[in-house]
């Protein structure tokens, strides 16, 4: 084991040179309370017991690690799918919202806010709020409300109020701005459940810890199947990077394991319509942390593009920025078209319709030179039901 761990940030929340808590004073009491209490609360035996029980009985964990035989044959290697798509609500997002709602209750909060892009995090938040009988407000970009209608309906049916973010690009970045403003205006009773490993310290670490159950399970599941806890590769898609953080977490300090993070290239990295942050970004500050950020020379945030609402974000979590910067992570990107093609391939080879976000991770299989002896774990972060409208449009175009 290396002496410095990639897992844990510094006391001020820094992973290498990325992280911190760049917040206005109005947010200080809430963020400081979290900084001081999150570890203590998460380590309470009572908290752990309730968290583990809910993950097992409510979320449906452990999720299977499935050997994808036909996909493996296609790429002449061994591919294991970590089936986060089988979690209750259809994606990994609920691992984090279960953790944060239990934390919010222990902090005495009575009102929950969240941002959402594809709607998966919004649904996962609305779900746990219904479970605990707490008021829930979800901010969602106006553009995303249009393209993710089924998830909007689910949130409403679960009793959440969905508030459109109408500023800027009207997507995830702007929904996050509105959620932060709500938190500024409601400093006492409200907890903000951030859905990714972004935001001011301690969010990146807290969310990574809640999602780390993904790789915790992968280790023993892989050992059962192959005799070794260590794969050669772990592949995950990255928007803000929560499923990747969870899938990488217990492998971060296992340097033999290649960590492959796949970003959304949109129409192509250099097309001007992309969300490939590590390729296009520079160090900057957004939503309370220093990380890599797509921005103009003058430091204005660039509006990203991806066909997948969950990856349509101009930044990346500070943990991932550090993995990129240090070379520990292998960063790639897939275009809208490549992701779409991969989704259809997986559907027909394995009988699994992946979320558009996850389809980007599958698209990377084409570009990695995988060997027959490799053991590849791919985090199947979500299911594709919410993306059916986009997939149907594609089928029409192809005349299928």
């Amino acid at each position, binding site marked *: 084991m290396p002496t410095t761990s990639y897992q844990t940030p510094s006391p001020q929340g820094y992973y290498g040179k990325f992280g*911190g808590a760049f917040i206005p004073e109005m947010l200080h009491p809430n963020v400081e309370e979290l900084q001081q209490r999150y570890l203590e609360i998460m380590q309470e035996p009572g908290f752990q017991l309730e968290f583990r029980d809910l993950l097992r009985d409510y979320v449906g964990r452990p999720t299977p690690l499935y050997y994808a035989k036909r996909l493996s044959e296609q790429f002449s290697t061994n591919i294991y799918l970590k089936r986060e798509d089988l979690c209750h609500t259809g994606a990994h997002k609920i691992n984090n919202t279960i953790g944060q709602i239990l934390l919010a209750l222990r902090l005495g909060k009575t009102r929950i806010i969240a941002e959402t892009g594809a709607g998966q995090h919004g649904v996962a938040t609305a779900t746990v709020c219904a479970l605990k009988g707490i008021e829930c407000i979800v901010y969602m970009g106006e553009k995303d409300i249009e393209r993710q209608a089924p998830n909007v309906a689910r949130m409403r049916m679960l009793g959440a109020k969905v508030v459109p973010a109408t500023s800027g690009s009207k997507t995830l970045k702007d929904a996050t701005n509105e959620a932060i403003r709500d938190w500024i*205006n409601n*400093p006492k009773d409200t907890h903000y459940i951030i859905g990714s490993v972004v935001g001011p310290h301690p969010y990146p670490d807290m969310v990574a810890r809640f999602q780390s159950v993904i790789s915790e399970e992968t280790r023993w599941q892989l050992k059962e199947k192959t005799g070794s806890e260590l794969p050669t590769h772990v592949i995950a898609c990255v928007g803000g990077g929560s499923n990747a953080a969870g899938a990488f977490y217990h492998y971060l300090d296992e340097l033999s394991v290649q960590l492959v993070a796949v970003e959304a290239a949109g129409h192509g990295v250099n097309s001007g319509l992309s969300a490939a942050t590590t390729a296009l970004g520079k*160090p900057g500050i*957004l939503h309370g942390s220093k990380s890599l950020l797509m921005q103009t*020379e003058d430091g*204005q*945030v660039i509006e990203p593009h991806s066909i997948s609402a969950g990856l349509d974000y101009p930044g990346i979590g500070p943990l991932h920025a550090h993995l990129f910067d240090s070379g520990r992570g292998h960063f790639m990107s897939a275009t809208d078209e490549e992701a779409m093609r991969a989704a259809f391939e997986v559907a027909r080879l394995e009988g699994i319709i992946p979320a558009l976000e996850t389809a980007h991770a599958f698209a990377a299989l084409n570009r990695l030179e995988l060997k027959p002896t490799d053991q590849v774990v791919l985090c199947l972060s979500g299911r594709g039901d919410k993306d059916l409208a986009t997939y149907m449009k594609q089928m029409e175009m192809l005349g299928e």
Partner: protein
Amino acid sequence: MSRIKELFAVKPNRVLNVYCTAGYPGPDSTLEVMEALQEYGADLIELGMPYSDPLADGPVIQESSSVALANGMTIARLFEQLKDFRKRISVPVILMGYMNPVLQYGFERFCKDAAAAGVDGLILPDLPEYEFETEYGAIVKQYGLDFIFLVTPETSEQRVRKLDQLSSGFLYAVSSSSTTGSNKEMGDVNSYLQRLRNYKLKNPVMVGFGIKDRESFDAACENANGAIIGSAFIKALNGSEDVKTGIKNFLSGVLA
């Protein structure tokens, strides 16, 4: 002594600080607005540098920032506009903005160019005190700029004292936990301001957020050294036909 300290030495009460967005309403309005503010009674000018994602600001200032950005406003362009402004403007001027554009410009280059232009102080609400103390504070000081921290009704006494120690020029007391331009009740603001006064801080205290007219300005001045008007001024500017008349009417309403 800095221009801001001189101001409070001469005028310890009823100091009026007006916020305007650089490059708003027109790309070249910056100086015209500043001049009119000085002419019609502003004691201090807080010049906002527009940013695409202004988290601490409400819709009015965000909209003015979007217009300014669409007008092509950048920090580089702002410093061009401010090149000879001290020939025309004598009141202290503070630049307010968010960290990201400043970092891209280069933090030290930014402080150097601001000081060279004749700017007196900085407000960067998303620069936390840890990073200020460990990295950026020394640079601000090196170029002789004042740096103003914000406190809110939720800020503990210990923290108020710390932020007061780190600040120079004045301390910015946010009247309620909100973004700018909100219409939150100013109910407990007096007891909060009295509390600040009882701390006997080293800096004068200016109240901001929710100050919009003569009544709220007068009320704020009872327990502080002055107040800051932002969103209400931007709104007035937006609704007036020419900049100068709009500013004259607005400020005469506040100060009459």
